[in-house]
């Protein structure tokens, strides 16, 4: 019974009422380098973010083993940063989680396999991001454990374009 209820509400969350907003944008050309904040970033369909390390065709920039189609752009919840401070006393700045787009009001964990609009661009969520040890090394903060299951979302870019801070994020039915 409980299962049906929670599965149902998750379903509703993705089908019905949520509208989110883009709060921060970041990118970096190579592994380990600090992320730089931007007011807007250019998403290239099927490839990645202009100038970012996960742009396909820019093999040098891949930290992971293989260039990954589903990692063209990564999202992170602002709510997680708030929770991290509240629950673990860790202040993590938006550039430190190393995902590209920090959003507010978007149920990222429920979007795997779904399509949604990020400003004027259309994304398809491929899988949840996993935290990596490497991020603790870079930030010097013990965030691996607290970020398990809330480490953001990896997406493919179906329709590219400019994404700006303040853009609306919404479901693509």
């Amino acid at each position, binding site marked *: 019974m409980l299962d049906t209820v929670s599965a149902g509400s998750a379903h509703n969350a993705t089908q019905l009422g949520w509208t989110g907003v883009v709060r921060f944008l970041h990118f*970096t*050309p*190579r*592994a*380990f*380098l*600090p992320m*730089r904040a931007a007011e807007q970033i250019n998403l290239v369909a099927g490839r990645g973010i202009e100038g970012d390390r996960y742009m396909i065709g820019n*093999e*040098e920039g*891949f*930290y*992971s*083993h*293989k*260039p990954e189609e589903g990692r063209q752009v990564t999202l992170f919840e602002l709510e997680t940063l708030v929770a991290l401070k509240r629950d673990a006393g860790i202040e993590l700045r938006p550039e430190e989680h190393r995902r590209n787009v920090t959003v507010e009001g978007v149920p990222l964990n429920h979007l795997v396999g779904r399509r949604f609009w990020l400003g004027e661009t259309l994304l398809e969520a491929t899988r949840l991001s*996993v*935290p*990596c*040890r*490497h991020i603790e*090394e*870079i930030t010097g903060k013990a965030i*691996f454990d607290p970020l*398990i299951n809330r480490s953001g979302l990896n997406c493919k870019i179906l329709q590219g374009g400019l994404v700006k801070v303040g853009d609306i994020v919404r479901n693509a039915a």
Partner: protein
Amino acid sequence: MKVRPITTVKTVVADIEEAGRGIKLFTLVDPDRWELPPFKPGAHIDLHLPNGLVRTYSLCNEPADNTRYVIAVKREAEGRGGSRVLHDEVRPGDVIGVSLPRGGMTPDARIARYVFVAGGIGVTPFLSMARHLERTEQAGFTLHLIVREEVPLAAHLGALIEEGRVVVHRTSRTGRPDLAALVGEGGSDTLVACCGPEGMTDDFERQTAAWPAANVHVERFVAPPPVIDPDAKPFTLLLARSGMEIEVRAGQTMLAALQEGGVDVATSCCGGICGACKVGWIEGKPVHRDRILSPYERERYLMVCVVGSDADRLVLDL
């Protein structure tokens, strides 16, 4: 093109400057002049040199200057080879992979005064600290530089010497200074630090033995041994398909040993939760530290990023 995991920060040599007899300053930057990973005053980095050597050097620029890593290297003809490669072979434009910066001091508001004691080229870690303290004016400092005759990095220290912040002690003229007198009385708001040849650091440790440990800091030329789990033992990996043997050092991860041996293993989390690095094992006693394999799966698979071994030998299906 085959994509290998990236384990170092890519830098290029932007500048090489002669900085006194046998000493060169190397400036490393990102190929696009992007900011580099931040570092604390007194931090060091490992350089992965073209011939495969890995050597540790102190960063000597001011940490706020985040687009450069500057290191000072003295050519040691009788050394272990790192400084010779840098002096004789490395040229501007060469690509050098470096580790993330490690160590250094976290500025502590309770410290009002720093006393640094450096022997010769051991002055390098204190250069970034001195520059940092000068800029932030958060605490006073004196750097005692003990040299035989010639001051290393004289051009870079000139202004600080004139201001009296760096005091040069030339042993060829005045003999060895009394370390106890240089560091003075311990106090909770004073931090003393030393970097130099071993005899000097030993002496320094003796002089400051009674000080609170938090107020005494020693930098050694050789990278400090990594913190090793006291129970960790070295073991041998045998790769069943290639027949290759790889030694895993005490405290080293199996993943790092495989990568060192040129074996590519996919990774993502490096913390035992994503499953990217899962491989089969055939023989041995793995110590599983992942958080996702079931007891049944653990009979066949392991996660190389976190697994250890309880026996001297572990055979992998690789």
